[in-house]
């Protein structure tokens, strides 16, 4: 065996080496299942050593859970696997091992069998295969579950595979088989072919293809797809193509929406008239076409240059400043304007810019809106220019107006001054002739006058005084209107004012038979400070009114204290009457100027209608108010308040009583015109005592002709330039026994006084306005000389204004008399300043004619003892008498014949002119001759002129004035002549008339009255006294007054009544019948 084995041994050694060297695991297992031999690879594979394995059952590597039969043969020998099988084994270290096992049964020569087991480790191979399988599964899952549709097409474009998403996209079920052609998935054949061509072209050239287009779902609806694909092998299209496909409908929609929206914005932005742009990093990051248009720059230019280049050089700093401040987050004006220079045209464009901060592409930027405002600016500028121009013009106008108003104001001031001057002058100019009228009539009334003359002159005087009142009213009113009425503030006694009121008004009340009462309680303070003249003026005005409008009953003036405060007292005066009263609508007009209760009142009661208006203003100047209550037919109560100061020097009641008693004891009617008379009628007496004014003073009131008092051994210097005034004052004083010397101006007065010394004259009456040297200057010069420091100098001036009076005092005069000078005032002034107490009440017994003759001032020629005062205006009696050879009788006869024969000569000339101018001329010539003979100078002159004018051929119209003047003069002259010459003939002494004649006249009178024949008055003039003798005085007075008022009804009624009472009424009926 060994031998055999040697060879065999060698064999065996070779086999063993191969056995061990092979990489496959090999082992021999005996029939008992025991490993008899294992090679290295086998051992390594199982992790056992050869020693471990040899002798061990082969199942040593079978995992416990796996037994033979379960993956392993039960018996290697009886059931050997024919093919290699996978065995899952466990290595010694526990790791599992998958091996591919192959078994070969070998039968030994001994007959014993051995199992040769080959093991190949396939664990790694299996793991890789598992992994691959797993990967493939995963990919399939991914592909299938992808949202993106995928399809694999063969070379012919037929689908080989498509994922679920693809099915879903086209609305297919998984079970649907894909059509051979894909045309049905396209909207149209054209679309299919077009896409197919494009795809083919791409694939053929080895390119990928992608596109977006619409495809059709199974249900026919279209949707947008994104398609992309390429050949599996770009070099060899035969391997097919792979495609992905996405539904992009939503995206497309969004894009479309976005596009639309963007388009809209673009449209807006591109077409707005504003420039819209974004500035970022000082450059235009975005701008709309309008910007390029407006600036003339291209987008590129503005994108690469600072935006500032488009702006006018002068405005760049301004804009930059704004821009920078905005960038820094400062608050800047939302809008501002600057200029842009168009790069193409060079035009300057005004723009207005509004900007906001925004984020542009993630970074801060400015979004600006810029508007061309050039036109607007131009309009604004032109408007502004217009406005500026207008403002300039208006300013000019305003300046002009201001200047004008300043001029107007100055003018108004000048006017006011002029008005004031005018007032002063008017006052002077009016008073001067009034002075002459009133003064001369006064003098005339002192001369011998026949009743008719006396009547005329009385009437002139009455009219003069009334006119003076009216003038005073108007001047007062003008002064008030001009604000020129000054109120005095001087101490006065209320009782004096009231006494004066009663003096001035009482007469009239008495005349009308009215009860006239003053009620002034004791508690009213008497010593007041204010303007007594103005208070008196108001009271007199109101009382006069009350009396004027009251026919019967009473007028009462009362006063009470309203209020006392701080040295002042408010008094309320009431004037109550039982007169005609007024309706409310009448009272409302009362205080207006020039207005009376009704138009006809003026006619019935007269007056300027200024009185109440003046009273109202005066009351207002005294700090008070005026109002009235009135009832038609019942009466009127007018009340006013006024403030006065109270002086400390309040008289005690006792003193007042004492004075009062004394006053009343020696009371005589107060002077007609308001002057301090020294009378004091205190209230307690007045209230008890209706003011009784003696009848004698009633008639006289303002018209009373005072008998001059007698002064002795007084010389007065009268300084006066006006001859009329000289005459009046001189005669007034001479008639009172005063020696008067004249100086015709201030200088003359000084000369006279200096020469005469201070003792020659008791006082000086000084006119103010005089030529050469006025009264003020003269007085100042006199006062400068100590010798004349105390010489009483009294101003006589027509300036009645308060300030004028003040000026007189200022220049050193002692007192002031207003012209027209009232005789009483003149005498009182002399009495006051000359200290001569013996003002002799005029002796009523003294014959004025005698006195006049005594003073020798009337200039009446006393001829042949005739008691005829021959002073006829327009007649030079002396010259006439001379021509009458000094024979008054002859002269009178001549006058008489002249009057009778030539009275109507002017008329005759006038008539002759129309027929025969020669006759007219002759008549004028003849009249001239007669006039010159008589000394009728004016008639002579006028008729001479007429004669010449007629001869010169003047037409009648041109002669009318002279004719009229001549006629008037002739009438006056003849009337005067008739009055003087005819009296003896026509007016036989009335006391000589026998009662029968008187009765006849009375009957005739009654008839004339009844016939309303004006001859009744002529009869009255002639036979008044005779007729009066038949009736009682009272009745006759009524008859005569009524007749003279031409109220013939009343006159006749009164006459009849009186005649019946007297028992002579029978004559009327019988006389009339005869």
């Amino acid at each position, binding site marked *: 065996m060994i031998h055999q084995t040697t060879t065999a041994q060698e064999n065996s050694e070779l086999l063993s080496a191969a056995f061990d060297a092979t990489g496959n695991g090999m082992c021999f297992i005996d029939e008992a299942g025991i490993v008899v031999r294992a090679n290295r690879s086998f051992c390594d594979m199982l992790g056992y050593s050869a020693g471990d394995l040899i002798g061990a059952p082969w199942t040593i590597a079978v995992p416990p859970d796996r037994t033979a039969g379960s993956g392993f043969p039960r018996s290697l020998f009886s059931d050997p696997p024919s093919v290699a099988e996978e065995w899952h084994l466990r290595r010694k270290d526990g790791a599992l091992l998958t091996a591919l096992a192959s078994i070969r049964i070998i039968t030994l020569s001994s007959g014993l069998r051995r199992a040769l087991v080959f093991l190949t480790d396939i664990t790694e191979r299996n793991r890789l295969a598992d992994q691959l399988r797993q990967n493939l599964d995963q990919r399939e899952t991914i592909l299938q579950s992808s949202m993106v549709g995928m399809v694999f097409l063969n070379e012919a474009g037929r689908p080989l595979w498509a994922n679920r998403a693809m099915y879903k996209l086209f609305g297919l079920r998984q079970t649907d088989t894909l059509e051979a052609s894909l045309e049905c998935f396209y909207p149209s054949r054209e679309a299919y072919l077009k896409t197919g061509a494009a795809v083919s072209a791409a694939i053929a050239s080895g390119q990928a293809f992608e596109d977006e287009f619409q495809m059709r779902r199974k249900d026919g609806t279209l949707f947008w797809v994104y398609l992309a694909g390429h050949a599996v092998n770009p070099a060899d299209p035969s391997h097919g193509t792979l495609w992905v496909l996405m539904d992009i409908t939503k995206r497309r929609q969004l894009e479309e929406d976005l596009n639309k929206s963007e388009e809209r914005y673009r449209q807006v932005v591109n077409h707005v008239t504003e420039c819209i742009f974004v500035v970022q990093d000082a450059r235009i990051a975005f701008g709309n076409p309008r910007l390029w248009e407006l600036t003339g720059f291209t987008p590129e230019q503005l994108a690469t240059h600072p935006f500032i280049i488009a702006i006018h050089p002068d405005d760049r700093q301004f804009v930059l400043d704004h821009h920078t401040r905005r960038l820094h987050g400062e608050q800047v004006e939302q809008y501002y304007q600057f200029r842009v220079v168009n790069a193409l045209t060079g035009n300057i464009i005004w723009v207005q810019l509004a900007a906001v901060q925004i984020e542009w592409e993630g970074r801060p930027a400015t979004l600006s809106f810029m508007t061309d405002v050039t036109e607007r600016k131009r309009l604004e500028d032109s408007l502004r220019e217009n406005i500026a121009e207008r403002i300039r013009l208006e300013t000019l106008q305003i300046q002009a107006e201001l200047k004008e108003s300043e001029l107007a104001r100055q003018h108004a001031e000048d006017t006011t001054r002029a008005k004031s001057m005018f007032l002063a002058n008017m006052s002077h100019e009016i008073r001067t002739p009034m002075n002459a009228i009133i003064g001369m009539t006064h003098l005339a009334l002192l001369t011998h006058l026949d009743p008719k003359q006396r009547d005329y002159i009385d*009437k002139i005087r009455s009219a003069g005084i009334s006119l003076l009142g009216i003038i005073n009213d108007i001047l007062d009113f003008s002064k008030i209107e001009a604000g020129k009425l000054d109120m005095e503030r001087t101490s006065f006694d209320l009782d004096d004012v009231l006494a004066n009121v009663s003096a001035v008004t009482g007469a009239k009340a008495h005349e009308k038979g009215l009860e006239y009462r003053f009620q002034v309680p004791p508690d009213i303070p008497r010593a007041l400070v204010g303007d007594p003249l103005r208070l008196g003026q108001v009271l007199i005005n109101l009382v006069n009114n009350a009396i004027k409008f009251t026919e019967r009953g009473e007028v009462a003036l009362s006063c009470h204290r309203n209020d006392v405060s701080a040295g002042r007292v408010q008094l309320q005066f009431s004037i109550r009457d039982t007169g005609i009263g007024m309706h409310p609508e009448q009272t409302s007009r009362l205080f207006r100027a020039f207005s009376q209760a009704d138009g*006809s*009142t003026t*006619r*019935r009661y007269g007056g300027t209608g200024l009185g109440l208006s003046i009273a109202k203003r005066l009351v207002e100047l005294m700090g008070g108010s005026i109002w009235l209550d009135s009832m038609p037919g019942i009466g009127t109560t007018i009340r006013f308040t006024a403030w006065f100061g109270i002086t400390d020097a309040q008289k005690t009641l006792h003193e007042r009583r004492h004075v009062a008693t004394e006053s009343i004891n020696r009371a005589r009617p107060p002077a007609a015109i308001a002057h301090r008379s020294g009378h004091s009628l205190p209230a307690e007496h007045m209230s008890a005592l209706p003011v009784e004014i003696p009848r004698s003073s009633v008639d006289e009131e303002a018209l009373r002709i005072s008998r001059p008092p007698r002064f002795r051994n007084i010389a007065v210097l009268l300084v006066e330039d006006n001859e009329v005034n000289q005459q009046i004052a001189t005669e007034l004083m001479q008639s009172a026994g005063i020696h008067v010397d004249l100086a015709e101006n201030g200088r003359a007065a000084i000369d006279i006084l200096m020469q005469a010394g201070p003792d020659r004259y008791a006082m000086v009456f000084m006119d103010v306005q005089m030529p050469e040297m006025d009264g003020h200057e003269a007085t100042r010069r006199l006062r400068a000389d100590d010798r004349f420091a105390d010489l009483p100098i009294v101003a006589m001036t027509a300036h009645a204004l308060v300030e004028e009076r003040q000026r007189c005092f200022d220049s050193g005069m002692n007192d002031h008399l207003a012209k027209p000078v009232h005789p009483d005032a003149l005498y009182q002034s002399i009495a006051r300043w000359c200290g001569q107490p013996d003002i002799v009440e005029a002796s009523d017994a003294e014959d004025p004619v005698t006195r006049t003759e005594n003073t020798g001032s009337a200039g009446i020629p006393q001829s042949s003892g005739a008691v005829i005062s021959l002073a006829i205006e327009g007649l030079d009696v002396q010259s006439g008498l001379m021509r009458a050879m000094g024979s008054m009788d002859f002269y009178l006869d001549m006058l008489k014949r002249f009057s*009778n*024969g030539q*009275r*109507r000569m*002017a*008329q005759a000339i*006038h008539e002759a002119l129309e027929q025969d101018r020669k006759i007219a001329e002759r008549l004028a010539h003849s009249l001239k001759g007669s006039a010159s003979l008589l000394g009728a100078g004016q008639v002579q002159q006028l008729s001479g002129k007429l004669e010449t004018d007629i001869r010169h051929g003047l037409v009648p119209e041109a002669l009318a004035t002279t*004719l*009229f003047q001549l*006629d*008037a003069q002739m*009438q006056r002259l003849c009337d005067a002549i008739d009055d003087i010459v005819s009296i003896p003939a026509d007016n036989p002494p009335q006391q000589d008339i026998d009662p029968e004649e008187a009765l006849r006249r009375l009957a005739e009178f009654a008839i004339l009255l009844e*016939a*309303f*024949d*004006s*001859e009744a*008055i*002529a009869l009255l003039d002639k036979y008044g006294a005779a007729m009066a003798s038949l009736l009682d005085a009272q009745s006759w007075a009524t008859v005569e007054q009524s007749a*003279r*008022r*031409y*109220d*013939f*009804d009343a006159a006749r009624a009164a006459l009849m009544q009186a005649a019946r009472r007297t028992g002579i009424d029978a004559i009327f009926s019988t006389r009339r019948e005869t």
Partner: protein
Amino acid sequence: MNKAVSKAMSNDSKPTILVVDDTPDNVMVLSALLRDQYKVKVAANGLKALELAAAQPPDLILLDVMMPELDGYETCRRLKAAPSTAGVPVIFLTSRTEPEDEEFGLLIGAADYITKPINPADVLERVAKQLK
């Protein structure tokens, strides 16, 4: 005309003039002016004037305008409205001097219009003219 002559003339042969004025002085002046040639009747107011004129129409009326109660214009209107007095010439005599016043006076039937203060010769002439 001499006074003796005027006296000798019978009152009745003279034309009658009614003077209407509420101011006695005016009446006095007018009657003095007219009495030589005319018979002068007087009325102190418009109502009296109407009464007198109605009773015995005068040959002419001199009528003041401003009078209480019944003014001259109204008086004139009434005179012109009454058949018996419609033919009597009326001359207004007034201190109103506005041309409109004159026009108004003439409108309501006045024959003439004389303003005050009167010019006596003028008054006589105008009166005579109306009585021709």
